[in-house]
């Protein structure tokens, strides 16, 4: 009982903080100066219509690289924690998936993968990008593993694909350092026509590598949890 009262007090105090924050917040009626720079200069400088992708991949590209490194470390640590060393015991044999799930998977899987690839490669033009598309691809992998309990994922191949995507990501960054303004600067490739599929310098390439890397990493994490 005391525990609940303490919890209630904590929640009420947090509620007071949040209420003050929400009550005193004044909605912006114009962009902040940094945002104004990104919105006005970003499309002209990078040739990418989607400003959020421009920020993620170029202006804050180094952070994105760090974030992918975090995902990589999580995949590694989950693998370490869930290593089969006899302590975890063996899971009961799984029931086979029902007819509906299996048929639905056969119909949906190509669509999910196509949609994921579409979201990844259109990241510079419309809402989407490497992270989002990678998550969609991984959700397809999840469906695949749900439908076939015996299905195995080639984790070794995925790891190789993921490592190469990471290496190429850094290589593109270094190319930007050598040929253009700085690390991960995508302007060493031609900007192309604004809004065209092949445009915005190296942003679609970096986005695709990011998508491959995120998709592979999330798939490996999902597979680790299955065993």
């Amino acid at each position, binding site marked *: 009982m005391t*525990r*609940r009262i*303490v*919890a*209630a007090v*904590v*929640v009420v105090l*947090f*509620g007071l903080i*949040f*209420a003050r*924050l*929400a009550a005193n*917040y004044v*909605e*912006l*009626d*114009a*962009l*902040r100066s*940094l*945002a*104004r720079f*990104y*919105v*006005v200069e970003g*499309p*002209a400088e990078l040739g990418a*219509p*989607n*400003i*959020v992708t421009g*920020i*993620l991949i170029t202006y*804050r590209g180094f*952070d*994105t690289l760090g*974030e992918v490194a*975090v*995902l990589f470390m*999580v995949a590694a*640590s*989950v693998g370490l*924690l*869930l290593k089969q060393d006899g*302590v*975890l*015991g063996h899971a009961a044999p799984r029931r086979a998936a029902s007819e509906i799930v299996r048929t639905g998977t056969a119909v949906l899987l190509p669509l999910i993968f196509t949609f994921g690839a579409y979201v990844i490669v259109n990241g510079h*033009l*419309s*809402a989407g*990008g490497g*992270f*989002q598309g990678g998550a969609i691809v991984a959700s397809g992998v999840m469906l695949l593993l749900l439908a076939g309990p015996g299905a195995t994922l080639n984790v070794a191949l995925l790891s190789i694909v993921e490592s190469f995507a990471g290496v190429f990501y850094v290589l593109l960054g270094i190319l930007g350092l050598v040929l253009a303004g700085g690390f991960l600067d995508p302007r060493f490739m031609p900007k192309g026509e*604004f*809004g065209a599929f092949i445009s915005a310098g190296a942003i679609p390439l970096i986005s695709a590598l990011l998508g491959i890397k995120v998709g592979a990493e999330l798939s490996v*994490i999902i597979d*680790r*949890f299955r065993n």
Partner: protein
Amino acid sequence: MTTGLPVSTILLVTGFCLSLIGIWGMLTHRNILRIIIGFAVMDTGLHIVMVATGYVTGGTAPIIDKALSKAEAAQRAIDPVPSALVVTAIVIGLSVTAVMLSYAIRLYAAKKTLSIDAFTESKW
């Protein structure tokens, strides 16, 4: 339909309420899985709050296309920085959740229970 309230206020209240529900869930439940779910709910609420702080009155998504020309982008686009930050925050939240879940599996293997009351070794 307009409610008279600014959009960002509605979003802020929603996000903060979700966070409070998450904190309450984390503090009151004894099952490790429920605590993790509480964390995820709190996390989602804070993401909504972060996105809300980028909203500009009457703004639209910061994507230049037929509906938003380059010239009027500075007037009509929302602040893209919080949106970009939230993508990062979501990925980190997912990573933390994944690590917590694998620890939960380890703890279950050790004690065959998910109740946090069973793990008294690290209690002070």
